[in-house]
């Protein structure tokens, strides 16, 4: 856990880079510091590994004041990657990757194993270890920059706009990689960027910096749905705010939460009766805990001769339910493509919680199309009145 307590950093006695910052970053969290240049985000990052020392206030890592560490020892425990890679051109890729392990005096075998494992992890050929950075492509260099920061498996990793100079495709691939690595090693990441898309994609929480102060520190969803003020709103951009309004609808919000179910012990004739009664063509089969097992449809029942058969004999298990927390925008196309009208919705433990029907989709589409114009106008007006 990293805590900033009333941290202020003043340069040259009058330039205030960071003003009374108070934030807490939990272990294993991926936090993006975002802001324009001069907003204090980079200074705030560099305070953590004592590349700068605060003028006032204190920073604690896991409850210990970082001022109690020597800068050198502190930095060796913290991963660090910067813009334009910062790879040493006169060292081989291997020497670059094991920079921190060597400073920590790991033995050569452990260094070698670590380097090879990380190279494999990021899909780079082991042979590249003997090359020099200038012989690698920009994307490969930045991959090396990333694994160099992770080589000694630090608890905290700081990244200062590491992907700023890369093309969008390479950058996208590196984002995925960083997310995977972070989940795998569970390090705490602090990532400085000025690119909102990057922050939205990577961060568990985003701190928006402006003129040395944190204006908002929250999850991407909350920042999009509740921007703290006009500055944040303008920083996020109209397009994203609009997208956020229409895109953040979860399956849970539009589903019909009263699906008709049947339990495994029942017979085909029971099912038929129930269908007739409820005027539906599909029943979901659930166990005693309401866990989804499959479904029976009228087509199946019509093909059965023996009406006393157990429904488990004709159950269709190929149902591919939606998750209640899925965003509908991600699933809409899939739902329409599948061409099925009754799609079950389950929660994390596969408990049936609802159903998406054709009617639901009609309602959703209607709302999206008619509300879209209204929503867009609202946002534009808000934008103009700023």
């Amino acid at each position: 856990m990293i805590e900033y307590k009333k941290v202020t950093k003043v340069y040259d006695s009058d330039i205030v880079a960071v003003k009374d910052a108070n934030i807490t970053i939990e272990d294993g969290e991926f936090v993006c510091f975002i802001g324009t240049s001069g907003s204090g985000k980079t200074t705030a990052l560099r305070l953590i590994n004592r590349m700068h020392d605060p003028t006032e206030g204190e920073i604690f890592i896991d409850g210990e004041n970082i001022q109690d560490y020597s800068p050198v020892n502190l930095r060796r425990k913290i991963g660090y990657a910067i813009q334009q890679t910062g790879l040493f051109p006169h060292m081989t890729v291997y020497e670059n990757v094991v920079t921190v392990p060597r400073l920590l005096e790991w033995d050569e075998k452990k260094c070698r194993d670590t380097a090879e494992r990380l190279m494999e992890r990021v899909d780079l050929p082991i042979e590249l270890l003997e090359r020099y950075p200038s012989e690698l492509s920009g994307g490969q260099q930045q991959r090396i920059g990333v694994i160099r920061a992770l080589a000694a498996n630090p608890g905290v990793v700081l990244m200062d706009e590491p992907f700023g100079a890369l093309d969008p495709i390479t950058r996208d691939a590196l984002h995925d990689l960083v997310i995977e690595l972070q989940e795998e090693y569970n390090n705490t990441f602090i990532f400085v960027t000025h690119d909102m898309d990057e922050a939205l994609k990577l961060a568990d929480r985003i701190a928006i910096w402006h003129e040395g102060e944190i204006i908002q520190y929250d999850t991407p969803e909350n920042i999009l749905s509740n921007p703290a003020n006009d500055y944040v709103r303008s920083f996020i951009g109209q397009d994203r705010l609009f997208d956020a309004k229409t895109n953040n609808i979860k399956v849970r919000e539009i589903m019909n939460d009263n699906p008709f179910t049947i339990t495994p012990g029942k017979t085909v004739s029971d099912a038929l009766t129930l269908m007739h009664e409820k005027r539906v063509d599909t029943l979901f089969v659930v166990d005693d805990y309401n866990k989804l097992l499959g479904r029976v449809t009228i087509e199946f029942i019509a093909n059965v001769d023996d009406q006393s058969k157990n429904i488990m004999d004709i159950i269709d298990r190929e149902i591919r339910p939606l998750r209640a927390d899925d965003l509908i925008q991600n699933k809409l196309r899939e739902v329409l493509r599948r061409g099925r009208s009754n799609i079950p919705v389950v929660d994390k433990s596969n408990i049936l919680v609802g159903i998406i029907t054709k009617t639901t989709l009609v309602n959703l589409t209607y709302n999206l199309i008619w509300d879209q114009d209204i929503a867009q106008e609202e946002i534009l007006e808000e934008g103009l009145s700023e």
Partner: protein
Amino acid sequence: MMEFFANNGSALITAIGEHIFLSLIALALGILVAVPLGILLSQFPKTADIVIGIASVLQTVPTLALLALMVPILGVGKIPSIVALFIYSLLPILRNAYLGMSGVDPTLVDAAKGMGMSTGQVIRKVQLPLAIPVIMAGIRLSAVYVVAWTTIAAYIGGGGLGEFIFNGLQTYRQDLIFGGTIPVIIIAIVMDLTAGYLEKRFSPKTSSSEVETDYA
């Protein structure tokens, strides 16, 4: 030609020996002082401006005047010659050492520090290796200058090929002038090539496929 060698051969060889000796000693002292000083200065950019300013002023003192100044202080002979030449060799080496060190891409220094290298480690592992080409270029330049200036050391009894040249000038003997000048030129060229080779040799590798090429 043969007659010249017959008459002056042994004196010429002595003079060449003295010339090389004076130059190399002055240059070696220059390297020993200026390289560490330049590295040190790169850590204190504000002081560096002052020190390099002073060194630049010293450089503007004419060679002959500086040699003459040595006479009342250190007398005549080899020692004052070496001291004067040493002072002259300082500036190119000092300036290049400083520029080479402080010219290393600041993002690399930042990365090195940020990963937990101490100041000494940053210098040793990152700045110095990357500054070597520039430092060596300074030494190379200084070497060629010192060989040329050593000629003037003959004025205060330092010996070397300057004796041939000055004797030749005083007695209007072309053979002595050429006999002194040509070896100086050859020594300077050889120094330059050697320093160039060393520059190449000590420059850090930055590519695995780099082919060793002759450096001239």
